[in-house]
């Protein structure tokens, strides 16, 4: 009741998703009467579960949208002898499943249909690895990354012929979708690796907030936003590319650092995310600015300095998720980042940045790439079509 009265009083009499936003606004601008916390939580939760992201369209979903809170990256290996016809059958089947599940409708033959009804902004994005193209008798448009000096890659987190990026604001929705899609992929391919990750939960921060990683850093401030996404991410045919890197955080040694050292490594204030040359998160870094001791405010070796890209067409869209596995007996965490970036071209956009970071980035002392995979992301499809039809059809 309280929430409803406040919504009406605040003039936020809007339908659907607007209700949750309205409730949040009232909570912060209320006129001295605090809304009942429980009722407000209810309002947020109800819209979170039923929210959907359209699956059909010229571009795949799960890329330009604000990332949902939970993700599973599932990579598969095709057995020898897989041909183009089998790949087309597989993609028809998986497309049908995803078209249903993203609407909150069970897949055909879904043995746990009750788990399908709350999509919670579910998206499933398909990526094709170099091996899928070779199996289809086609030249791969992407190639494995060169080996970087900093890499300590493990095969159990690397490579893959097919990738499913499953994202939703609820982990049970992700789990059920993963189960359903693995069941339908099994006749065609073996699971190669699964990486599960998370970001802040819905309602915890504004949707456009910058993610924090497990090192406590703001992560994604320099991402293209809004209209900046198009020239960086999308090819004219609606395709793009995806790099997935598993990056272990060396938490035990990171913990030893003083805050100033941590900030120098990344080039941003931990709390505000502001560049060391500025005061606000979105301030443009000023590489000419000197600090009190006459040294550049933005250290030459900092992550932000090294990763800097100004040409909008050369930016990458980072869409990372944190991971946090079980600590070992000594209490050392198994934590890090599932780095995922979307860009038109891996060689034109991602590689130059990664090469600069691998050459010199103080942050490398506390992060270790342990997995790496690249995928072409085919265009989306219309209703009745299937993902990959332009490639395999």
């Amino acid at each position, binding site marked *: 009741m309280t929430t409803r009265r406040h919504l009406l009083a605040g003039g936020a009499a809007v339908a659907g998703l607007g209700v949750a936003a309205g409730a949040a606004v009232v909570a912060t601008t209320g006129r001295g009467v605090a809304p009942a916390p429980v009722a407000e939580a209810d309002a947020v939760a109800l819209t979170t579960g039923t929210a959907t992201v359209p699956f059909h369209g010229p571009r795949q979903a799960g890329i330009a949208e604000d990332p949902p809170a939970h993700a599973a990256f599932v990579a598969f290996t095709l057995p020898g002898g897989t041909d183009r016809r089998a790949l087309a059958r597989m993609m028809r089947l998986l497309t049908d499943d995803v078209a249903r599940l993203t609407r909150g409708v069970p897949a055909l*033959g879904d043995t746990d249909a009750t788990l399908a009804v709350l999509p919670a902004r579910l998206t499933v994005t398909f990526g094709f690895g170099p091996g899928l193209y070779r199996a289809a008798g086609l030249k791969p448009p992407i190639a494995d990354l060169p080996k970087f000096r900093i890499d300590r890659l493990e095969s159990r987190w690397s490579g893959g012929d097919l990738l499913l990026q499953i994202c939703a604001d609820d982990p049970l929705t992700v789990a059920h979708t993963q189960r359903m899609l693995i069941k339908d992929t099994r006749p065609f391919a073996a699971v190669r690796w699964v990486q599960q990750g998370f970001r802040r939960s819905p309602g915890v921060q504004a949707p456009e907030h910058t993610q924090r990683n497990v090192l406590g850093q703001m992560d994604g401030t320099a991402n293209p936003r809004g209209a900046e996404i198009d020239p960086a991410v999308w090819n004219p045919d609606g395709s793009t590319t995806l790099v997935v890197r598993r990056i272990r955080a060396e938490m035990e040694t990171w913990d030893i650092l003083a805050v100033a050292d941590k900030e120098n490594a990344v080039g941003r204030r931990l709390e505000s995310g502001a560049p060391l040359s500025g005061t606000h998160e979105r301030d443009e870094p000023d590489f000419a600015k000197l600090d009190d001791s006459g040294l550049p405010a933005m250290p030459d070796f900092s992550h932000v300095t090294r990763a800097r890209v100004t040409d909008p067409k050369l930016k990458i869209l980072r869409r990372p998720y944190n991971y946090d596995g079980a600590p070992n007996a000594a209490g050392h965490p198994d934590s890090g980042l599932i780095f995922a970036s979307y860009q038109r071209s891996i060689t034109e956009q991602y590689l130059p940045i990664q090469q600069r970071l691998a050459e010199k980035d103080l942050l490398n002392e506390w992060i270790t790439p342990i997995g790496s995979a690249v995928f072409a992301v085919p265009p989306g499809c219309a*209703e009745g079509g299937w993902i990959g039809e332009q490639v395999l059809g």
Partner: protein
Amino acid sequence: MRNTLIAVAALAVLGLTGCAKSDDTTTAAGGTPAPAPSATAAAGTLTIKDPWVKASAAGTMTAAFGTLVNDTGADITITGAESPASPLELHEMAMKDGKMVMQPKEGGFVIKSKGTHELSPGGDHLMLMKPKEAIEPGDEITFTLKLADGSTVPFSAIAKPFAGAEESYAPGEHGASGMPMGSMAP
């Protein structure tokens, strides 16, 4: 008792597909999902929503499922079904000597006026008695339903890998040797 349980389970499996949009319905107009209910449906016949078939090896029995929808003003009886993929029978699951068995459905499937009829694992289904070739996951299999008034309803169903709720299809029990028809008679 067991019968009831299985019926309830079958509803739980397919009952929610009712949320699917109308354009999931395959109509008599063609094998592919139509963007909207077609003129055929409006003219008054049967449609099948969310059709699928369990993938299977050549010669191994399998089944097709979906939701039969009768939007007409009269009851419709399905008396038989055909497919280029396999000889077909209309089957139901029934309790016999304390065990659930499948058996041919006496009198066919009756779909009440303005009603629906679920074909589901553990319930009524279209039985593919002996597929000529393997039915691979992702294959599109075409079917024709034969109605009591002599008309037919074609549709196509996508093949899915499926392992649930079908203990009576276990290889060895009714496998490649074929089902002993005598034991299935009511």
